[in-house]
Protein backbone atom coordinates (compact mmCIF):
# COMPACT_ATOMS: atom_id res chain seq x y z
CA UNK A 1 0.00 0.00 0.00
CA UNK A 2 2.80 2.37 0.95
CA UNK A 3 4.48 1.52 -2.34
CA UNK A 4 1.37 2.33 -4.37
CA UNK A 5 1.22 5.65 -2.60
CA UNK A 6 4.84 6.49 -3.44
CA UNK A 7 4.33 5.46 -7.06
CA UNK A 8 1.19 7.58 -7.36
CA UNK A 9 3.01 10.54 -5.87
CA UNK A 10 5.85 10.14 -8.39
CA UNK A 11 3.39 9.93 -11.29
CA UNK A 12 1.68 13.07 -10.05
CA UNK A 13 5.06 14.84 -9.79
CA UNK A 14 5.87 13.81 -13.37
CA UNK A 15 2.49 15.10 -14.59
CA UNK A 16 3.04 18.39 -12.74
CA UNK A 17 6.43 18.62 -14.36
CA UNK A 18 4.83 18.18 -17.78
CA UNK A 19 2.19 20.80 -16.92
CA UNK A 20 4.91 23.30 -15.98
CA UNK A 21 6.52 22.73 -19.36
CA UNK A 22 3.21 23.41 -21.09
CA UNK A 23 2.92 26.63 -19.10
CA UNK A 24 6.40 27.68 -20.31
CA UNK A 25 5.44 26.87 -23.89
CA UNK A 26 2.21 28.86 -23.45
CA UNK A 27 4.15 31.81 -22.04
CA UNK A 28 6.61 31.85 -24.94
CA UNK A 29 3.74 31.54 -27.39
CA UNK A 30 2.14 34.61 -25.80
CA UNK A 31 5.25 36.84 -26.14
CA UNK A 32 5.68 35.46 -29.65
CA UNK A 33 2.21 36.68 -30.62
CA UNK A 34 3.02 40.09 -29.11
CA UNK A 35 6.26 40.43 -31.05
CA UNK A 36 4.50 39.24 -34.21
CA UNK A 37 1.89 41.99 -33.87
CA UNK A 38 4.60 44.57 -33.08
CA UNK A 39 6.52 43.40 -36.11
CA UNK A 40 3.52 44.13 -38.30
CA UNK A 41 2.85 47.45 -36.57
CA UNK A 42 6.37 48.85 -37.03
CA UNK A 43 7.67 50.21 -40.31
CA UNK A 44 7.77 53.41 -42.36
CA UNK A 45 4.19 54.17 -41.34
CA UNK A 46 3.63 53.12 -37.75
CA UNK A 47 0.31 51.41 -37.11
CA UNK A 48 -1.39 51.11 -33.75
CA UNK A 49 -1.36 47.66 -32.18
CA UNK A 50 -5.18 47.73 -32.00
CA UNK A 51 -5.45 48.42 -35.71
CA UNK A 52 -3.11 45.55 -36.55
CA UNK A 53 -4.99 43.17 -34.29
CA UNK A 54 -8.29 44.14 -35.89
CA UNK A 55 -6.86 43.72 -39.38
CA UNK A 56 -5.52 40.27 -38.49
CA UNK A 57 -8.81 39.24 -36.87
CA UNK A 58 -10.78 40.37 -39.89
CA UNK A 59 -8.43 38.33 -42.09
CA UNK A 60 -9.33 35.16 -40.24
CA UNK A 61 -13.03 35.89 -40.58
CA UNK A 62 -13.98 37.91 -37.49
CA UNK A 63 -16.40 40.63 -38.68
CA UNK A 64 -14.53 43.85 -37.79
CA UNK A 65 -14.36 47.06 -39.84
CA UNK A 66 -10.80 47.84 -40.97
CA UNK A 67 -9.68 50.80 -43.10
CA UNK A 68 -8.61 49.93 -46.62
CA UNK A 69 -5.08 51.36 -46.21
CA UNK A 70 -4.41 49.45 -43.01
CA UNK A 71 -5.66 46.25 -44.59
CA UNK A 72 -3.36 46.69 -47.61
CA UNK A 73 -0.31 47.53 -45.50
CA UNK A 74 -0.92 44.61 -43.15
CA UNK A 75 -1.89 41.95 -45.66
CA UNK A 76 0.18 42.77 -48.69
CA UNK A 77 3.29 44.38 -47.26
CA UNK A 78 4.00 43.33 -43.72
CA UNK A 79 2.26 40.02 -43.08
CA UNK A 80 4.51 37.97 -45.41
CA UNK A 81 7.63 39.47 -43.80
CA UNK A 82 6.38 38.92 -40.25
CA UNK A 83 5.36 35.33 -41.06
CA UNK A 84 8.70 34.70 -42.74
CA UNK A 85 10.44 35.87 -39.55
CA UNK A 86 8.45 33.34 -37.51
CA UNK A 87 8.98 30.42 -39.87
CA UNK A 88 12.65 31.04 -40.59
CA UNK A 89 13.45 31.79 -36.94
CA UNK A 90 11.62 28.64 -35.91
CA UNK A 91 13.29 26.43 -38.48
CA UNK A 92 16.72 27.77 -37.54
CA UNK A 93 15.91 27.08 -33.88
CA UNK A 94 14.83 23.51 -34.62
CA UNK A 95 17.82 22.97 -36.94
CA UNK A 96 20.17 24.06 -34.17
CA UNK A 97 18.37 21.95 -31.58
CA UNK A 98 18.70 18.79 -33.66
CA UNK A 99 22.33 19.47 -34.62
CA UNK A 100 23.14 19.87 -30.94
CA UNK A 101 21.30 16.65 -30.13
CA UNK A 102 22.91 14.73 -32.96
CA UNK A 103 26.44 15.90 -32.24
CA UNK A 104 26.04 15.96 -28.49
CA UNK A 105 27.43 19.47 -28.35
CA UNK A 106 25.65 22.67 -27.28
CA UNK A 107 27.72 24.76 -29.71
CA UNK A 108 26.67 22.92 -32.86
CA UNK A 109 24.26 24.47 -35.36
CA UNK A 110 23.79 24.44 -39.15
CA UNK A 111 25.70 27.74 -39.10
CA UNK A 112 28.80 26.44 -37.31
CA UNK A 113 28.84 23.36 -39.55
CA UNK A 114 29.26 25.43 -42.68
CA UNK A 115 25.77 24.98 -44.15
CA UNK A 116 25.03 28.71 -44.06
CA UNK A 117 28.45 29.58 -45.46
CA UNK A 118 27.85 27.13 -48.30
CA UNK A 119 24.49 28.75 -49.03
CA UNK A 120 26.21 32.15 -49.06
CA UNK A 121 28.78 30.88 -51.51
CA UNK A 122 26.05 29.44 -53.74
CA UNK A 123 24.17 32.73 -53.77
CA UNK A 124 27.34 34.73 -54.45
CA UNK A 125 28.33 32.40 -57.27
CA UNK A 126 24.91 32.81 -58.89
CA UNK A 127 25.14 36.60 -58.65
CA UNK A 128 28.62 36.44 -60.13
CA UNK A 129 27.57 34.19 -63.00
CA UNK A 130 24.57 36.40 -63.70
CA UNK A 131 22.02 33.74 -62.85
CA UNK A 132 22.90 31.36 -65.70
CA UNK A 133 20.05 32.76 -67.77
CA UNK A 134 17.46 32.55 -65.02
CA UNK A 135 16.20 35.71 -63.39
CA UNK A 136 18.12 36.64 -60.24
CA UNK A 137 15.10 36.27 -57.96
CA UNK A 138 14.93 32.59 -58.83
CA UNK A 139 18.59 31.84 -59.51
CA UNK A 140 20.03 33.10 -56.22
CA UNK A 141 17.84 30.98 -53.92
CA UNK A 142 18.44 27.94 -56.14
CA UNK A 143 22.21 28.47 -56.01
CA UNK A 144 22.08 28.86 -52.22
CA UNK A 145 19.93 25.75 -51.81
CA UNK A 146 22.09 23.58 -54.05
CA UNK A 147 25.39 24.59 -52.43
CA UNK A 148 23.96 24.14 -48.95
CA UNK A 149 22.88 20.61 -49.84
CA UNK A 150 26.26 19.85 -51.42
CA UNK A 151 28.06 20.88 -48.26
CA UNK A 152 25.59 18.88 -46.18
CA UNK A 153 26.09 15.84 -48.42
CA UNK A 154 29.76 15.84 -47.52
CA UNK A 155 28.65 15.61 -43.90
CA UNK A 156 26.14 12.85 -44.79
CA UNK A 157 28.94 10.88 -46.40
CA UNK A 158 30.99 11.10 -43.25
CA UNK A 159 28.02 10.34 -41.02
CA UNK A 160 27.38 7.11 -42.90
CA UNK A 161 30.82 5.74 -42.13
CA UNK A 162 30.84 3.21 -39.32
CA UNK A 163 32.36 4.29 -36.02
CA UNK A 164 32.69 7.98 -36.80
CA UNK A 165 32.30 10.04 -33.64
CA UNK A 166 30.28 13.23 -33.26
CA UNK A 167 33.49 15.10 -32.44
CA UNK A 168 34.93 14.16 -35.82
CA UNK A 169 31.73 15.29 -37.54
CA UNK A 170 31.96 18.69 -35.85
CA UNK A 171 35.59 19.07 -36.93
CA UNK A 172 34.63 18.19 -40.49
CA UNK A 173 31.79 20.73 -40.37
CA UNK A 174 34.08 23.49 -39.15
CA UNK A 175 36.55 22.63 -41.91
CA UNK A 176 33.69 23.00 -44.42
CA UNK A 177 32.80 26.36 -42.88
CA UNK A 178 36.33 27.60 -43.60
CA UNK A 179 36.32 26.13 -47.08
CA UNK A 180 33.09 27.83 -48.12
CA UNK A 181 34.06 31.10 -46.49
CA UNK A 182 37.28 31.11 -48.51
CA UNK A 183 35.41 30.30 -51.70
CA UNK A 184 32.97 33.08 -50.92
CA UNK A 185 35.83 35.54 -50.40
CA UNK A 186 37.29 34.37 -53.68
CA UNK A 187 34.06 35.18 -55.54
CA UNK A 188 33.91 38.58 -53.87
CA UNK A 189 37.58 39.18 -54.70
CA UNK A 190 37.09 38.59 -58.43
CA UNK A 191 33.75 40.46 -58.60
CA UNK A 192 33.24 44.08 -59.60
CA UNK A 193 32.66 46.50 -56.68
CA UNK A 194 28.93 46.77 -57.55
CA UNK A 195 28.50 43.02 -57.61
CA UNK A 196 30.51 42.66 -54.44
CA UNK A 197 28.09 45.12 -52.83
CA UNK A 198 25.12 43.02 -53.95
CA UNK A 199 26.70 39.86 -52.56
CA UNK A 200 27.43 41.55 -49.28
CA UNK A 201 23.82 42.70 -49.00
CA UNK A 202 22.57 39.16 -49.57
CA UNK A 203 24.93 37.82 -46.93
CA UNK A 204 23.59 40.24 -44.32
CA UNK A 205 20.31 38.41 -44.36
CA UNK A 206 17.07 40.21 -44.97
CA UNK A 207 13.41 39.40 -44.60
CA UNK A 208 12.32 42.00 -47.16
CA UNK A 209 12.58 39.43 -49.95
CA UNK A 210 9.59 37.65 -48.43
CA UNK A 211 6.44 37.32 -50.54
CA UNK A 212 3.46 35.00 -50.31
CA UNK A 213 5.04 32.44 -52.64
CA UNK A 214 8.28 31.93 -50.75
CA UNK A 215 6.49 32.14 -47.40
CA UNK A 216 4.25 29.30 -48.54
CA UNK A 217 7.20 27.18 -49.73
CA UNK A 218 9.17 27.72 -46.52
CA UNK A 219 6.09 27.03 -44.42
CA UNK A 220 5.27 23.73 -46.12
CA UNK A 221 8.88 22.50 -45.94
CA UNK A 222 9.19 23.49 -42.29
CA UNK A 223 5.91 21.90 -41.21
CA UNK A 224 6.77 18.59 -42.89
CA UNK A 225 10.31 18.53 -41.51
CA UNK A 226 9.26 19.39 -37.95
CA UNK A 227 6.53 16.74 -38.05
CA UNK A 228 9.02 14.07 -39.14
CA UNK A 229 11.44 15.13 -36.40
CA UNK A 230 8.69 15.04 -33.78
CA UNK A 231 7.89 11.44 -34.70
CA UNK A 232 11.47 10.55 -33.78
CA UNK A 233 11.42 12.62 -30.61
CA UNK A 234 11.99 9.73 -28.19
CA UNK A 235 14.81 8.30 -30.28
CA UNK A 236 16.43 11.72 -30.38
CA UNK A 237 16.05 12.01 -26.62
CA UNK A 238 17.73 8.60 -26.26
CA UNK A 239 20.58 9.77 -28.47
CA UNK A 240 21.48 12.38 -25.88
CA UNK A 241 22.36 9.57 -23.44
CA UNK A 242 25.33 8.85 -25.70
CA UNK A 243 25.59 6.92 -28.92
CA UNK A 244 26.57 3.61 -27.37
CA UNK A 245 23.71 3.74 -24.92
CA UNK A 246 21.26 4.78 -27.64
CA UNK A 247 22.36 1.70 -29.58
CA UNK A 248 21.85 -0.44 -26.50
CA UNK A 249 18.26 0.87 -26.36
CA UNK A 250 17.67 -0.30 -29.91
CA UNK A 251 18.22 2.95 -31.82
CA UNK A 252 19.80 2.55 -35.25
CA UNK A 253 22.17 5.45 -34.61
CA UNK A 254 23.71 5.67 -38.09
CA UNK A 255 20.29 5.80 -39.74
CA UNK A 256 18.82 8.30 -37.28
CA UNK A 257 21.86 10.53 -37.68
CA UNK A 258 21.66 10.51 -41.47
CA UNK A 259 17.90 11.06 -41.55
CA UNK A 260 18.05 13.97 -39.10
CA UNK A 261 21.00 15.57 -40.91
CA UNK A 262 19.11 15.45 -44.19
CA UNK A 263 15.98 16.99 -42.68
CA UNK A 264 17.95 19.77 -40.98
CA UNK A 265 19.87 20.45 -44.18
CA UNK A 266 16.66 20.78 -46.19
CA UNK A 267 15.13 23.13 -43.62
CA UNK A 268 18.27 25.26 -43.36
CA UNK A 269 18.81 25.37 -47.11
CA UNK A 270 15.23 26.47 -47.74
CA UNK A 271 15.23 29.15 -45.05
CA UNK A 272 18.67 30.49 -45.94
CA UNK A 273 18.03 30.58 -49.66
CA UNK A 274 15.11 33.01 -49.18
CA UNK A 275 16.43 35.27 -46.42
CA UNK A 276 20.23 35.01 -46.54
CA UNK A 277 22.51 34.24 -43.64
CA UNK A 278 21.10 34.73 -40.18
CA UNK A 279 23.53 33.78 -37.49
CA UNK A 280 23.30 32.60 -33.93
CA UNK A 281 19.60 31.79 -33.68
CA UNK A 282 20.50 28.16 -34.30
CA UNK A 283 22.79 28.17 -31.28
CA UNK A 284 20.92 30.51 -28.96
CA UNK A 285 17.33 29.28 -29.25
CA UNK A 286 17.94 25.61 -28.34
CA UNK A 287 20.12 26.57 -25.41
CA UNK A 288 17.38 28.77 -23.93
CA UNK A 289 14.84 26.02 -24.58
CA UNK A 290 17.04 23.45 -22.85
CA UNK A 291 17.30 25.62 -19.76
CA UNK A 292 13.54 26.11 -19.65
CA UNK A 293 12.19 22.59 -20.27
CA UNK A 294 15.11 20.15 -20.26
CA UNK A 295 15.79 17.72 -23.05
CA UNK A 296 12.64 15.68 -23.43
CA UNK A 297 12.34 16.32 -27.17
CA UNK A 298 8.56 16.34 -27.04
CA UNK A 299 8.91 19.75 -25.37
CA UNK A 300 12.46 20.75 -26.31
CA UNK A 301 11.82 20.61 -30.05
CA UNK A 302 8.63 22.75 -30.19
CA UNK A 303 10.06 25.21 -27.68
CA UNK A 304 13.26 25.60 -29.73
CA UNK A 305 10.99 26.48 -32.64
CA UNK A 306 8.98 29.04 -30.67
CA UNK A 307 12.06 30.70 -29.16
CA UNK A 308 13.81 30.85 -32.54
CA UNK A 309 10.66 32.38 -34.01
CA UNK A 310 10.44 34.89 -31.17
CA UNK A 311 14.12 35.88 -31.47
CA UNK A 312 13.93 36.55 -35.19
CA UNK A 313 10.58 38.29 -34.91
CA UNK A 314 11.83 40.63 -32.18
CA UNK A 315 15.10 41.16 -34.08
CA UNK A 316 12.93 42.21 -36.99
CA UNK A 317 11.18 44.79 -34.78
CA UNK A 318 14.55 46.06 -33.55
CA UNK A 319 15.98 46.27 -37.06
CA UNK A 320 13.20 48.70 -37.94
CA UNK A 321 13.27 50.78 -34.76
CA UNK A 322 16.96 51.22 -33.80
CA UNK A 323 17.28 54.01 -36.32
CA UNK A 324 13.76 55.28 -37.12
CA UNK A 325 13.14 55.30 -40.83
CA UNK A 326 16.13 53.09 -41.64
CA UNK A 327 16.11 49.30 -41.96
CA UNK A 328 19.07 47.52 -40.40
CA UNK A 329 19.95 44.18 -42.01
CA UNK A 330 18.43 41.60 -39.68
CA UNK A 331 21.45 39.30 -39.85
CA UNK A 332 23.50 42.00 -38.17
CA UNK A 333 20.93 42.56 -35.43
CA UNK A 334 20.67 38.86 -34.51
CA UNK A 335 24.45 38.51 -34.27
CA UNK A 336 24.68 41.56 -32.04
CA UNK A 337 22.06 40.11 -29.70
CA UNK A 338 23.56 36.64 -30.05
CA UNK A 339 27.16 37.33 -29.08
CA UNK A 340 26.55 38.66 -25.53
CA UNK A 341 24.25 35.71 -24.94
CA UNK A 342 26.89 33.33 -26.22
CA UNK A 343 29.38 34.72 -23.72
CA UNK A 344 26.89 34.47 -20.90
CA UNK A 345 26.29 30.87 -21.86
CA UNK A 346 29.99 30.02 -21.72
CA UNK A 347 30.44 31.70 -18.35
CA UNK A 348 27.33 30.03 -16.97
CA UNK A 349 28.55 26.60 -18.11
CA UNK A 350 31.74 26.91 -16.13
CA UNK A 351 29.99 27.29 -12.81
Amino acid at each position, binding site marked *: MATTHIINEAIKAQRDH*EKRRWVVIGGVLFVLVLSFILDIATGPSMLRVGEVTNALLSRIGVPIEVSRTTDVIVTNLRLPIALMALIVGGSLGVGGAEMQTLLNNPMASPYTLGMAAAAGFGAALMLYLGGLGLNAQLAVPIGAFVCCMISASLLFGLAMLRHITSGQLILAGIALLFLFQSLLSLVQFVSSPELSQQILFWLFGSLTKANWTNVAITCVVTVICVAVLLRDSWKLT*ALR*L*GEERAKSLGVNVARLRLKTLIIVAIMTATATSFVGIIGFIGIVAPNIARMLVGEDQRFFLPLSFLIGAFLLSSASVLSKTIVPGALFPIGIVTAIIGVPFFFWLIINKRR
Partner: protein
Amino acid sequence: MLEVSNLSLAFGDLVLADDMSFRLNTGQTHVIIGPNGTGKSSLLKTLFGDIRPQKGSIQFSGEVFNVKNVTQWRRQFGYMPQDIRLDVGLSVLEVVLLGQLNALSLKLGDSLLEEALFALEQIGLVSLANQDVRTLSGGQCQMVLFAQALMRKPKILMLDEPVSALDLHFQQVMLNHLDQQTKANGWVSLMILHDLNLAAQYADNLLVLKGGRLVAQGAPADILTPQLIKDVYGVNVDIEFDGGGVPFVRTHRFSGQAGIHSNTSQIKAVS
Protein backbone atom coordinates in the same frame (compact mmCIF):
# COMPACT_ATOMS: atom_id res chain seq x y z
CA MET B 1 20.52 -20.92 -24.52
CA LEU B 2 23.01 -18.44 -25.97
CA GLU B 3 25.60 -20.34 -27.94
CA VAL B 4 28.89 -19.01 -29.25
CA SER B 5 30.85 -21.20 -31.65
CA ASN B 6 34.40 -20.82 -32.93
CA LEU B 7 34.45 -17.08 -32.38
CA SER B 8 37.58 -15.27 -33.54
CA LEU B 9 38.00 -11.55 -33.03
CA ALA B 10 41.10 -9.42 -33.47
CA PHE B 11 41.91 -5.72 -33.79
CA GLY B 12 45.06 -5.78 -35.92
CA ASP B 13 47.62 -7.78 -33.98
CA LEU B 14 45.58 -7.77 -30.80
CA VAL B 15 43.76 -11.08 -30.51
CA LEU B 16 40.64 -10.77 -28.36
CA ALA B 17 39.06 -14.11 -29.12
CA ASP B 18 40.77 -17.08 -30.68
CA ASP B 19 38.38 -19.81 -31.80
CA MET B 20 36.29 -19.38 -28.67
CA SER B 21 33.21 -21.50 -27.98
CA PHE B 22 30.83 -21.58 -25.04
CA ARG B 23 27.18 -21.99 -24.11
CA LEU B 24 25.21 -19.90 -21.66
CA ASN B 25 22.11 -21.50 -20.17
CA THR B 26 18.89 -19.61 -19.52
CA GLY B 27 17.91 -18.93 -15.92
CA GLN B 28 21.53 -18.58 -14.89
CA THR B 29 23.91 -15.77 -14.01
CA HIS B 30 27.13 -15.96 -15.97
CA VAL B 31 30.12 -13.90 -14.91
CA ILE B 32 33.17 -13.08 -17.02
CA ILE B 33 36.42 -12.36 -15.22
CA GLY B 34 39.87 -11.73 -16.61
CA PRO B 35 42.72 -9.20 -16.76
CA ASN B 36 42.33 -5.65 -18.12
CA GLY B 37 42.49 -5.35 -21.88
CA THR B 38 41.73 -8.99 -22.50
CA GLY B 39 38.60 -8.32 -24.57
CA LYS B 40 35.77 -8.78 -22.08
CA SER B 41 33.84 -5.66 -23.16
CA SER B 42 34.55 -6.40 -26.82
CA LEU B 43 33.05 -9.85 -26.32
CA LEU B 44 29.81 -8.29 -25.01
CA LYS B 45 29.73 -5.87 -27.94
CA THR B 46 30.23 -8.77 -30.32
CA LEU B 47 27.33 -10.68 -28.81
CA PHE B 48 25.24 -7.49 -29.15
CA GLY B 49 26.14 -7.30 -32.84
CA ASP B 50 28.06 -4.05 -32.58
CA ILE B 51 31.46 -5.54 -33.46
CA ARG B 52 31.75 -7.97 -36.36
CA PRO B 53 33.92 -10.97 -35.55
CA GLN B 54 36.32 -12.37 -38.15
CA LYS B 55 34.93 -15.83 -37.70
CA GLY B 56 32.36 -17.77 -35.73
CA SER B 57 28.63 -17.80 -35.10
CA ILE B 58 26.34 -16.68 -32.32
CA GLN B 59 22.89 -18.09 -31.80
CA PHE B 60 20.10 -17.71 -29.30
CA SER B 61 17.30 -20.27 -29.01
CA GLY B 62 17.73 -21.39 -32.59
CA GLU B 63 18.10 -17.92 -34.13
CA VAL B 64 21.51 -17.29 -35.69
CA PHE B 65 22.82 -13.74 -35.61
CA ASN B 66 23.58 -12.09 -38.93
CA VAL B 67 23.94 -8.52 -40.16
CA LYS B 68 20.42 -8.44 -41.57
CA ASN B 69 18.53 -9.28 -38.40
CA VAL B 70 20.55 -6.95 -36.17
CA THR B 71 17.55 -4.79 -35.11
CA GLN B 72 15.46 -7.79 -34.20
CA TRP B 73 18.46 -9.46 -32.54
CA ARG B 74 19.11 -6.46 -30.32
CA ARG B 75 15.48 -6.30 -29.24
CA GLN B 76 16.13 -9.39 -27.08
CA PHE B 77 18.92 -7.70 -25.19
CA GLY B 78 19.16 -5.48 -22.19
CA TYR B 79 22.69 -4.15 -22.43
CA MET B 80 24.31 -1.82 -19.94
CA PRO B 81 27.60 -0.43 -21.28
CA GLN B 82 30.46 0.46 -18.97
CA ASP B 83 30.13 4.24 -19.22
CA ILE B 84 27.86 5.55 -16.45
CA ARG B 85 27.94 9.30 -17.09
CA LEU B 86 24.52 10.87 -17.51
CA ASP B 87 24.86 14.48 -18.64
CA VAL B 88 21.43 15.28 -19.98
CA GLY B 89 18.48 17.39 -18.83
CA LEU B 90 16.12 14.52 -18.01
CA SER B 91 14.61 13.14 -14.83
CA VAL B 92 15.46 9.69 -13.46
CA LEU B 93 11.99 8.49 -14.45
CA GLU B 94 12.45 9.71 -18.03
CA VAL B 95 15.82 7.97 -18.35
CA VAL B 96 14.31 4.69 -17.12
CA LEU B 97 11.34 5.10 -19.49
CA LEU B 98 13.75 5.18 -22.43
CA GLY B 99 14.32 1.47 -21.73
CA GLN B 100 10.95 0.92 -23.43
CA LEU B 101 11.82 3.17 -26.37
CA ASN B 102 9.60 1.37 -28.87
CA ALA B 103 6.52 1.70 -26.70
CA LEU B 104 6.86 5.44 -26.11
CA SER B 105 4.65 7.87 -27.98
CA LEU B 106 4.04 11.62 -27.79
CA LYS B 107 1.48 11.03 -25.07
CA LEU B 108 2.86 9.08 -22.11
CA GLY B 109 0.43 6.60 -20.62
CA ASP B 110 0.20 5.96 -16.87
CA SER B 111 0.94 2.25 -17.29
CA LEU B 112 4.43 2.86 -18.67
CA LEU B 113 5.17 5.34 -15.89
CA GLU B 114 4.00 2.77 -13.35
CA GLU B 115 6.20 0.13 -14.91
CA ALA B 116 9.27 2.38 -14.77
CA LEU B 117 8.53 3.38 -11.19
CA PHE B 118 8.06 -0.24 -10.23
CA ALA B 119 11.49 -1.05 -11.68
CA LEU B 120 12.96 1.80 -9.61
CA GLU B 121 11.05 0.75 -6.52
CA GLN B 122 12.42 -2.78 -6.66
CA ILE B 123 15.98 -1.56 -6.41
CA GLY B 124 15.23 1.05 -3.77
CA LEU B 125 15.44 4.11 -5.99
CA VAL B 126 11.86 5.27 -6.29
CA SER B 127 12.48 8.30 -4.08
CA LEU B 128 14.82 9.70 -6.76
CA ALA B 129 12.26 9.29 -9.56
CA ASN B 130 11.59 12.97 -10.22
CA GLN B 131 15.14 14.19 -9.72
CA ASP B 132 17.29 15.58 -12.55
CA VAL B 133 19.89 12.92 -13.42
CA ARG B 134 22.65 15.54 -13.50
CA THR B 135 22.34 15.85 -9.73
CA LEU B 136 23.00 12.14 -9.12
CA SER B 137 26.22 10.53 -7.92
CA GLY B 138 28.06 8.02 -10.11
CA GLY B 139 26.67 5.07 -8.15
CA GLN B 140 23.12 6.40 -8.37
CA CYS B 141 23.53 6.81 -12.14
CA GLN B 142 24.66 3.21 -12.34
CA MET B 143 21.55 2.02 -10.50
CA VAL B 144 19.32 4.16 -12.76
CA LEU B 145 20.91 2.60 -15.84
CA PHE B 146 20.37 -0.84 -14.33
CA ALA B 147 16.67 0.00 -13.92
CA GLN B 148 16.66 1.13 -17.56
CA ALA B 149 18.14 -2.21 -18.66
CA LEU B 150 15.46 -4.08 -16.63
CA MET B 151 12.79 -1.91 -18.27
CA ARG B 152 13.83 -3.45 -21.61
CA LYS B 153 12.28 -6.76 -20.46
CA PRO B 154 15.24 -8.61 -21.92
CA LYS B 155 15.76 -12.25 -22.66
CA ILE B 156 19.49 -11.70 -22.46
CA LEU B 157 20.83 -9.18 -19.97
CA MET B 158 24.43 -8.06 -20.38
CA LEU B 159 26.06 -5.81 -17.82
CA ASP B 160 29.54 -4.40 -18.29
CA GLU B 161 31.06 -3.85 -14.83
CA PRO B 162 27.68 -2.98 -13.32
CA VAL B 163 28.94 -2.48 -9.76
CA SER B 164 32.03 -0.38 -10.50
CA ALA B 165 30.67 2.71 -8.73
CA LEU B 166 28.36 1.06 -6.18
CA ASP B 167 28.69 1.00 -2.40
CA LEU B 168 28.45 -2.28 -0.51
CA HIS B 169 24.70 -1.96 0.03
CA PHE B 170 23.82 -1.29 -3.61
CA GLN B 171 26.24 -3.96 -4.86
CA GLN B 172 24.21 -6.49 -2.92
CA VAL B 173 20.85 -4.96 -3.91
CA MET B 174 21.71 -5.02 -7.60
CA LEU B 175 23.27 -8.47 -7.78
CA ASN B 176 20.63 -10.03 -5.59
CA HIS B 177 17.81 -8.55 -7.66
CA LEU B 178 19.56 -9.64 -10.84
CA ASP B 179 19.93 -13.19 -9.54
CA GLN B 180 16.26 -13.42 -8.51
CA GLN B 181 14.94 -12.00 -11.77
CA THR B 182 17.25 -14.16 -13.86
CA LYS B 183 15.94 -17.31 -12.20
CA ALA B 184 12.31 -16.18 -12.11
CA ASN B 185 12.17 -15.07 -15.75
CA GLY B 186 14.60 -17.51 -17.31
CA TRP B 187 16.97 -14.82 -18.55
CA VAL B 188 20.49 -15.39 -19.72
CA SER B 189 22.41 -12.91 -17.57
CA LEU B 190 25.98 -12.19 -18.47
CA MET B 191 28.13 -9.68 -16.66
CA ILE B 192 31.72 -8.62 -16.33
CA LEU B 193 33.03 -8.27 -12.78
CA HIS B 194 36.46 -7.51 -11.37
CA ASP B 195 35.68 -8.40 -7.77
CA LEU B 196 36.39 -12.13 -7.63
CA ASN B 197 34.49 -12.59 -4.38
CA LEU B 198 31.32 -11.01 -5.76
CA ALA B 199 31.80 -13.16 -8.83
CA ALA B 200 32.14 -16.27 -6.66
CA GLN B 201 29.02 -15.38 -4.67
CA TYR B 202 26.71 -14.61 -7.56
CA ALA B 203 27.93 -16.61 -10.55
CA ASP B 204 26.21 -19.84 -11.48
CA ASN B 205 28.79 -20.10 -14.18
CA LEU B 206 32.16 -18.39 -14.24
CA LEU B 207 34.05 -17.70 -17.48
CA VAL B 208 37.74 -16.90 -17.10
CA LEU B 209 39.21 -15.06 -20.09
CA LYS B 210 42.80 -14.39 -20.93
CA GLY B 211 44.68 -13.63 -24.13
CA GLY B 212 41.70 -14.40 -26.36
CA ARG B 213 41.09 -17.77 -24.77
CA LEU B 214 38.55 -19.13 -22.36
CA VAL B 215 40.99 -20.59 -19.84
CA ALA B 216 38.39 -21.96 -17.44
CA GLN B 217 34.63 -22.26 -17.22
CA GLY B 218 32.32 -23.72 -14.59
CA ALA B 219 30.86 -23.24 -11.13
CA PRO B 220 33.12 -20.95 -9.04
CA ALA B 221 33.67 -23.64 -6.39
CA ASP B 222 34.90 -26.04 -9.06
CA ILE B 223 37.29 -23.87 -10.97
CA LEU B 224 38.67 -21.16 -8.68
CA THR B 225 42.10 -22.32 -7.54
CA PRO B 226 45.19 -20.40 -6.42
CA GLN B 227 46.99 -21.73 -9.49
CA LEU B 228 44.32 -20.39 -11.87
CA ILE B 229 44.43 -16.95 -10.27
CA LYS B 230 48.21 -17.03 -10.39
CA ASP B 231 48.15 -17.98 -14.08
CA VAL B 232 45.56 -15.40 -15.04
CA TYR B 233 46.49 -12.43 -12.89
CA GLY B 234 50.05 -13.22 -11.76
CA VAL B 235 49.00 -12.75 -8.15
CA ASN B 236 49.39 -15.16 -5.22
CA VAL B 237 46.15 -15.76 -3.33
CA ASP B 238 44.68 -18.24 -0.90
CA ILE B 239 41.25 -19.67 -1.49
CA GLU B 240 39.02 -20.55 1.45
CA PHE B 241 35.48 -21.85 1.49
CA ASP B 242 32.68 -20.46 3.64
CA GLY B 243 30.01 -22.63 5.32
CA GLY B 244 27.92 -22.75 2.15
CA GLY B 245 30.83 -23.93 0.03
CA VAL B 246 31.30 -20.57 -1.69
CA PRO B 247 34.97 -19.89 -2.40
CA PHE B 248 36.58 -16.82 -0.88
CA VAL B 249 39.67 -15.32 -2.48
CA ARG B 250 42.05 -13.89 0.07
CA THR B 251 44.69 -11.60 -1.35
CA HIS B 252 48.00 -10.59 0.20
CA ARG B 253 50.00 -7.44 -0.12
CA PHE B 254 51.51 -7.53 -3.59
CA SER B 255 54.99 -8.99 -3.77
CA GLY B 256 55.08 -10.14 -7.37
CA GLN B 257 56.39 -8.36 -10.44
CA ALA B 258 54.34 -5.91 -12.45
CA GLY B 259 54.03 -7.32 -15.94
CA ILE B 260 54.43 -10.97 -15.01
CA HIS B 261 50.82 -11.77 -15.66
CA SER B 262 51.06 -10.90 -19.33
CA ASN B 263 52.94 -14.17 -19.72
CA THR B 264 50.37 -16.52 -21.18
CA SER B 265 52.59 -19.46 -21.99
CA GLN B 266 51.65 -21.74 -19.09
CA ILE B 267 47.92 -21.29 -19.56
CA LYS B 268 46.20 -24.30 -20.94
CA ALA B 269 43.07 -23.57 -22.88
CA VAL B 270 39.86 -25.43 -22.21
CA SER B 271 37.47 -25.59 -25.11
